[in-house]
């Protein structure tokens, strides 16, 4: 709101705008983003469908915008907003949100049984080798806070967002360059698994250090186009 007030306008007696100052800042320019994702990309707590962008890796954020442009992710308002942004502008916007450090806020968690939470923890930390489901932690970082340059953290995301995104991977309204390992993993998850892992992840306490792991620190168990852009990627 402060931002809007900063758009100071003064009028002369004739009523014509004499001095008009629009802040020449990126923050002012990207009102289309911050209206839903928050001025610092903190996301919207009341609705899990407007995810936090703050602190996510730059390359991850750029790729998501590209995916909305090229049809790999489907959500009409986002497709409309980013459709003609240039690579340079997307990079600048991504750097802005990646650099934001704002506290995580706890989002509502559905009431689930202890068994469900244990299943969620099992999937997140160890996976389910019998069904060839790798652990979330094998790619998203030991602390599940993501890994540079392009793997997002999972801690701090709302239940609604995680479960709806896993559903979107399954139904194909969210996808990534081939080989699309998240799509494969989502296909192997049961609906109850999605519920369990989303509830467990959303219930995790935020640690003081939410930084993504350094680049090269993970050795993913699957071949992923998103991790090896030269390999089958666009």
């Amino acid at each position, binding site marked *: 709101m402060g931002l809007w007030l900063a758009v100071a306008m003064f009028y002369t007696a004739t009523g014509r705008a004499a001095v008009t100052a629009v802040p020449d800042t990126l923050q002012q320019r990207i*009102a*289309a983003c911050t209206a839903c994702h928050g001025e610092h990309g903190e996301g919207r707590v009341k609705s899990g469908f407007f995810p936090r962008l703050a602190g996510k890796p730059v390359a991850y954020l750029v790729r998501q915008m590209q995916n909305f442009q*090229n*049809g790999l992710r489907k959500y009409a308002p986002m497709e409309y907003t980013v459709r003609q*942004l240039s690579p340079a502008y997307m990079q600048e916007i991504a750097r802005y949100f990646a650099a934001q450090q704002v506290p995580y806020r706890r989002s509502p968690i559905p009431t689930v049984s202890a068994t469900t939470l244990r299943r969620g923890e099992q999937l997140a930390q160890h996976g389910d080798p019998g069904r060839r489901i790798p652990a979330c932690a094998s790619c998203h970082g030991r602390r599940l806070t993501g890994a540079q340059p392009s793997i997002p953290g999972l801690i701090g995301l709302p239940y609604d967002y995680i479960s709806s995104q896993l559903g979107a991977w399954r139904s194909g309204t969210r996808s990534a360059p081939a080989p699309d390992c998240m799509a494969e993993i989502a296909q192997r998850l049961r609906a109850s698994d999605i519920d369990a892992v989303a509830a467990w992840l959303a219930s995790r306490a935020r640690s003081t250090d939410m930084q993504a792991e350094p680049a090269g620190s993970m050795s993913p168990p699957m071949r992923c186009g998103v991790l090896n852009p030269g390999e089958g990627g666009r």
Partner: protein
Amino acid sequence: MSRKAGVVGVVAVLALLGLGAGRLLALGAGFGSTASAAPVVEGPLDRPGLIARGRYLATIGGCVACHTAQGGKPYAGGRMLSTPFGAIPSSNITPDPATGIGRWHFDDFWRAMHTGKGRRGERLYPAFPYTSYTKLRRDDVLAIFAYLRSLSPVNQPRKALGLSFPYSVRSSLLAWRALYFDEGVYQPDPGRSVAWNRGAYLVQGLGHCNECHAPRNRFGAIPRHPRLSGGLIPVLDWYAPNLSAQPGGGLQGWSTQDIVDLLKTGRSARGSVFGPMSDVVVRSTQYMRDDDLRAVATYLHSLPSPPQAPSALPASAGQPRLKQGREIYRQRCASCHGKRGQGIAGVYPPLDGNASVTEPTGINAIRSVLLGGFAPVTQANPRPYSMPPFAQQLDDAEVAAVVSYLRQAWSNNSGAVEAGDVARYRQTPVD
């Protein structure tokens, strides 16, 4: 398509066939002639100067926008073009021999551009705007062909046609063409300036502006007159405003510089580009030479005042709703668009006297409030300002109130919109 709609469609096409026959006979042997084409010495295609000219012309024509699938290779086709009759895939116009135009001779390409017929003589669907491209001179078409033939071939087979019967039968186009297609290269008006004629040639031909900026009838055709009088873009559901600069026109009060600025940068002191026109500016008009942009403005300035546009909307929203709308405007809109809708030149568009606010349907204002969005990213404006989307913050009645208010505030005098209109456009796809 429902069965009933299908029957209506068949009857419509039969009626068209009947209607079309007379005109077809009247045209007689003249139909399909290319008598107006100036003779051109068609030398080799791989001349750098010819290719460069063709590239410029193809850019003005905006070919790449339709002939590229979302996330696909440029010019390789495969974008599904939505029409009220179904989806039509764009074709691969890279020089791939098997799936593109690699085996085409120039005469094949000329026939497609000038007469709307494919390589085997099949009638092309007018989603390909040959209705405009027919006005191109043969030397310009040759340059475009040379440019397309210089591209790297992409092997990408054609996608299946998404049209249902009877539109899936290409002979249904026979009558349509007889009624709605005037074949012929642009004929300069000797009474007008060189710039005016250049502008008319670009706007009517390559720019194919009339394909959006004019009303389409229920057969998807554009009545012959008046040109650029504004129209609803079917399926996309955006209103392409009237382009007359005369009193009552959509560009009333626009100077030549305003028009040039808008097409070159995506913004002007009078308005900003949004919706499908963003693609046009980003891919096409921002690369036009200044003399061509000024020529376009010269031509647009000569368009006559529009007839009073019919509006189905109620004249006034009523005092309580306007009061609510004024309050929402004060809280949410005025900090950028100004207390009196005057905007901030070059940053936030004015809403007073803005044709996209006052257009007959109210769709543009409703959808802009819902979607917000960035002004086009152009060479001249690489980091545009944006408008927040209000879809999450305002309900249907609130959007209707603020849109009705700004359509009637200041010097604006357009019909009110209802909450039901807003509900409908909330769900409209963006492409």
